[in-house]
C-alpha cells in the first residue's frame, strides 16, 4: 500500500516558497520575502493541523470516515503492502518469544517506518542499558520492539495517510476564501472571478482524485466512491435563493428603494456643477422622479438579488459562477445606461426650466418694446430682427428648427398684414421649436442608449450560451477520455494476468515484491481464491443477461452507451477465455506443458495409442537424470527442458529466500547497530561463511550442465539459506 500522501499536489502558495530569488533583489527584500514565506508556511501548517484535528474529532465527517477506513484496512492483510506488513509485524510481536519472530517484526516495522518517510526503524544504542546480561539484553530488545509496535505505529501510518487530504482541504478552503473576496468587490471582475473559481475547481478535483487514489490503495473503492459523492455534496453545496422581485415588494419598501436610488444618484453627481444638478433633481416632479429612478431601484434590487445568489452559490461549477458574474456585469451596464438616462432626464428638467425662463424673457421684450404706442412698427422691427438673425445664424440650426423659427416670424409678419398681433403665440412657437429640437435630441439619445444595452445584452446571452455549450462539449470529451483510460487500465491488468498465466503465476506470486522479500511468506492461498473467481467468470452469462433487457431499452439512447461500455469490458475477457480454452484443448505441445507426474517405472513400461515415439526426452530415474527414453503421452514424465525449468524456478525461489535473509540481516544491523558483529562474533562469522558459500554456489549453478550436480548444489544452497536464517533467528 502506498500512502495517500504520495500523491503530492503542489500548492502554488507553498511551491512559491522554494522559488529562486530574483536577481537584483535587495538583501532586505529577500529577508522580508523569506520571512513572509516562512510565515505563510507556518500558517498553512497550523491550518492543516486544525484540519487533522477536525478529522480525528469527527467534525470532518468524511475525513474521519477516510481515517477510520485506513485504520481498519491496517488489520486486513489483504488490503495491500502496508496492511500486510502491519499485520505480519503484529503477529511477530505477539509471538516475539518464538525464534525468528523478532527479526520478522523488525524487518516489517523497518519497511513501515520507511513508508512513513523516515530512514527506517531505529533503536538508539544509547537507549539500551549497558549493564544488561546477554539474556536481559535480548529481552530488553524484544520488549522495546513490542512497545514501539503498539505505541502508535498505526496512528503514525494513519496520520501520514491523512496528511495530504488535510493539506488539500486547506488549499481548497484558501481557494474558496479567495473566490469569495473576488466576488464581493462592487466592480466585480470577470477575469479575477474566473481565475479564482477555476482554481477552486482544480482544488476540488485534486481532493477527489486524492480520495479515489487513497481509497483504491487501501482496496476500498466502494467507500472511495461514497466519500467522493459526500465530499462533492459537501464542497459543492449550493443554495436555492428565493429572490423577491421588486414588484412583489410592498409600496413602502419600493418607495424606500427609489429614494435610496435618488440619494445615491445625488451623492455621485459631479462636483463642478453638483449644486445646479441637485437643484434640477430636487425640482423634478414626483412623477418624473419616479419614472426615472424606479427602473434604477429595480435594477439595483436585481443586482443585489443576483449577488446574494452568487454569494450562496460560490460552490457551483466555475462556468455557472462566471455566468452569474456575467449577468451581474450586464445588469451593471444596464444600470449605467439607466444612470445615463437619469442624467438626460436632468437635462430635460433643465430644458423645462429654461423654457419657462424663455417665456418670461419674451414677456419682458414684449412689455418693453412691443406693447407701446407704435405697436405695428415695433412688430415690424421684431420681424426684421428675427429674419436677420435667421439669415445670419440659420445655417447653424437644424432644418426643422430653422423652419420652426422662420415660420413663427412669418406668422407675426402675416398677422401684421391682417392688422393682428400674433407675437405672443409666435414667440411661444419659437420656444417650442427650440424645446422640441432639444427634446428630440434627448429622446433620440435615450433610445440609442437603450439600443446599445439591448444589443450588448443579446450578445452576452448568446455568448454565455455558446460558452456553456463549448464547456459541456469539452466535459463530454473528458468523460470519454476518462472512460477510455479506465478501460485501458483494465486491459493492461489483463495483459499482465495473461503473461503471468503463460509464464507461471506461482513463480511470480513467490516473488511478490516487498511482502515476499521481507517475510518470505507465500501469498498463494490468498491469490488462489481470486484466481479461481476470475477463471469462473462467464462473459457469456453476462451477455445473455444483457440480451434479456436489450429490447426493452432499445429506444433509450443512453442505454446504447452502457451497452458499448459493457461490450468494451467483456470483449477482452472473452478473448482471454478463448485463449485459455484453446490452451486447454489437447495438443502435442500440451503434453509437455501440463504433464501428469507418474512414477518413472510406470512410465517406462506403459505404452498406449497416440504415443510420441520419435520424441527423445530426459526423465528422472532413481539412478540418473540424463537417461534418454522414448515415452508415452499419457505418462507425462518430465522432459529435460521441463526439468531445467523446474530447477530454474527452484534457483529463483532460493535466491528470493537468500536475499530475504540478507535483507533481514541488513535491517537488523541498521536497527540495532553492531548486534550481529560485536555482540555475536561467532554467529556473525558463520553467517558470513554461509553467505560466501551461497554466492559461490549461485555463480557455479548457472554454468553447471549436469542436472544431478545441479540438484546437489540446490540442496546445499537451500541448507545454507536455512542456516543463515537460523543464525538470525537465534540472535534474540
Amino acid at each position, binding site marked *: 500500500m502506498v500512502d495517500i500522501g504520495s500523491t503530492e499536489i503542489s500548492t502554488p502558495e507553498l511551491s512559491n516558497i522554494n522559488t529562486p530569488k530574483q536577481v537584483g533583489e535587495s538583501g532586505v527584500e529577500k529577508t522580508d520575502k523569506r520571512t513572509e514565506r516562512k510565515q505563510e508556511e507556518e500558517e498553512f501548517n497550523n491550518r492543516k493541523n486544525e484540519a487533522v484535528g477536525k478529522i480525528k474529532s469527527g467534525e470532518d465527517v468524511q475525513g474521519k470516515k477516510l481515517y477510520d477506513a485506513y485504520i481498519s484496512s491496517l488489520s486486513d492483510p489483504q488490503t495491500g503492502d502496508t496492511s500486510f506488513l502491519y499485520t505480519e509485524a503484529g503477529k511477530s510481536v505477539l509471538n516475539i518469544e518464538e525464534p525468528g519472530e523478532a527479526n520478522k517484526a523488525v524487518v516489517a516495522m523497518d519497511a513501515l517506518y520507511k513508508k512513513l518517510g523516515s530512514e527506517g526503524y531505529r533503536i538508539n544504542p544509547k537507549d539500551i542499558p549497558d549493564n544488561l546480561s546477554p539474556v536481559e539484553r535480548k529481552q530488553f530488545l524484544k520488549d522495546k520492539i513490542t512497545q514501539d509496535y503498539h505505541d502508535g505505529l498505526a496512528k503514525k501510518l494513519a496520520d501520514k495517510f491523512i496528511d495530504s487530504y488535510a493539506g488539500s482541504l486547506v488549499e481548497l478552503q484558501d481557494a474558496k476564501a479567495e473566490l469569495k473576496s473576488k466576488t464581493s468587490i462592487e466592480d466585480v471582475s*470577470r477575469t479575477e472571478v474566473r481565475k479564482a473559481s477555476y482554481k477552486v475547481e482544480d482544488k476540488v478535483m485534486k481532493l477527489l*482524485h486524492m480520495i479515489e487514489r487513497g481509497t483504491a490503495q487501501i482496496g476500498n473503492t466502494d467507500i472511495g466512491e461514497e466519500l467522493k459523492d459526500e465530499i462533492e455534496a459537501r464542497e459543492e453545496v449550493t443554495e436555492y435563493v428565493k429572490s423577491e422581485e421588486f414588484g412583489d415588494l410592498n409600496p413602502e419598501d419600493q418607495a424606500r428603494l427609489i429614494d435610496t436610488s435618488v440619494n445615491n444618484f445625488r451623492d455621485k453627481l459631479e462636483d463642478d456643477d453638483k449644486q445646479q444638478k441637485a437643484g434640477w433633481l430636487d425640482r423634478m416632479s414626483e412623477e418624473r422622479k419616479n419614472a426615472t429612478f424606479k427602473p434604477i431601484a429595480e435594477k439595483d434590487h436585481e443586482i443585489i438579488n443576483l449577488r446574494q445568489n452568487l454569494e450562496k452559490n460560490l460552490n457551483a461549477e466555475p462556468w455557472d459562477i462566471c455566468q452569474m458574474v456575467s449577468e451581474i456585469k450586464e445588469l451593471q451596464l444596464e444600470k449605467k445606461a439607466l444612470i445615463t438616462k437619469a442624467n438626460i432626464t436632468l437635462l430635460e428638467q433643465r430644458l423645462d426650466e429654461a423654457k419657462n425662463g424663455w417665456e418670461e424673457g419674451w414677456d419682458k421684450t414684449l412689455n418693453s418694446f412691443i406693447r407701446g404706442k407704435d405697436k405695428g412698427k415695433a412688430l415690424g422691427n421684431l420681424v426684421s430682427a428675427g429674419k436677420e438673425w435667421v439669415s445670419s445664424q440659420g445655417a447653424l440650426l437644424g432644418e426643422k428648427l430653422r423652419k420652426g423659427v422662420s415660420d413663427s416670424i412669418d406668422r407675426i409678419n402675416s398677422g401684421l398684414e391682417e392688422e393682428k398681433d400674433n407675437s405672443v403665440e409666435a414667440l411661444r412657437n419659437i420656444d417650442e421649436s427650440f424645446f422640441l429640437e432639444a427634446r428630440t435630441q434627448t429622446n433620440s439619445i435615450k433610445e440609442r442608449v437603450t439600443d446599445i444595452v439591448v444589443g450588448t445584452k443579446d450578445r452576452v446571452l448568446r455568448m454565455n450560451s455558446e460558452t456553456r455549450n463549448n464547456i459541456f462539449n469539452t466535459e463530454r470529451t473528458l468523460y470519454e477520455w476518462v472512460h477510455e483510460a479506465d478501460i485501458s487500465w483494465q486491459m493492461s491488468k489483463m495483459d499482465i494476468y495473461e503473461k503471468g498465466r503463460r509464464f507461471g503465476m506461482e513463480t511470480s506470486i513467490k516473488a511478490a515484491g516487498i511482502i515476499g522479500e521481507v517475510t518470505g511468506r507465500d501469498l498463494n492461498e490468498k*491469490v488462489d481464491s481470486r484466481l479461481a473467481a476470475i477463471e469462473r467468470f462467464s462473459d457469456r452469462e453476462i451477455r445473455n443477461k444483457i440480451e434479456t*433487457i436489450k429490447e426493452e431499452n432499445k429506444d433509450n439512447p443512453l442505454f446504447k452507451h452502457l451497452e458499448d461500455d459493457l461490450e468494451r469490458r467483456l470483449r477482452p475477457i472473452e478473448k482471454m477465455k478463448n485463449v485459455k480454452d484453446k490452451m486447454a484443448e489437447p495438443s502435442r505441445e500440451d503434453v509437455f506443458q501440463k504433464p501428469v507426474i507418474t512414477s518413472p517405472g510406470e512410465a517406462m513400461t506403459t505404452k498406449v495409442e497416440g504415443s510420441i515415439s520419435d520424441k527423445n526426452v530426459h526423465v528422472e530415474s532413481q539412478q540418473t537424470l540424463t537417461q534418454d527414453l522414448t515415452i508415452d503421452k499419457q505418462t507425462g514424465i518430465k522432459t529435460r527442458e521441463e526439468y531445467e525449468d523446474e530447477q530454474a524456478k527452484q534457483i529463483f525461489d532460493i535466491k528470493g529466500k537468500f536475499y530475504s535473509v540478507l535483507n533481514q540481516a541488513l535491517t537488523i544491523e541498521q536497527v540495532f547497530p553492531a548486534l550481529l558483529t560485536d555482540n555475536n562474533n561467532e554467529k556473525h562469522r558463520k553467517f558470513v561463511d554461509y553467505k560466501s558459500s551461497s554466492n559461490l554456489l549461485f555463480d557455479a549453478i548457472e554454468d553447471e550442465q549436469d542436472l544431478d550436480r545441479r540438484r546437489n548444489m540446490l540442496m546445499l544452497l537451500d541448507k545454507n539459506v536455512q542456516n543463515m536464517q537460523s543464525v538470525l533467528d537465534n540472535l534474540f
Partner: protein
Amino acid sequence: MDDKQKLLQLIKMMKVPFSDKEVVEFVNKLSTESIEKLTSIYEEIKKFEDNLDYVVKNTDPVTYEKIKEEYSQKLLVLQEEFIRSAEEIQKRSDDQLDAEEIKSGKKIDESTSILMKEVDEIQNQHDSLCQFINQKLSTP
C-alpha cells in the same frame, strides 16, 4: 442501498461517460427489471475487475504499481486539461464580453457627451436669438 442507488454508484465507478445529470435521468427511466439486471451485471464485472486487480497487484507488484501510477496520473492530467480548456473557453468569452461592455460603455458616454453639447448649443442659439432681437428693438 437499493438497486437504483447501487446502479448509479456502479455506473460512476466504472466511469461510463455520462454526466451526473444523465446518470440520474438514465436510471430513472429504467424498469425495475432492467435496474436489477444491470446492477447484477455491473456487480459481477466489478467483482471480476477487483479480483483481477488483486491478483495482478500480488503477482506482479512492480508492473502493477507502474501501470497504476500511470493510470492515476492519466486521470489527473485529463482533469487538469479539462479545467485548463474550460477556463480558456471561458476566458475567450470573458475577454469578448469585457471588450463589448467597454465599447458599449464608451458609446453611451460619447452619446451623452454629444447630447450635452447639442442641448447647450440649442440653448445658446435661443439665447442668441433673444439677445439679437432685444438689441435690435432697443436700438432707436
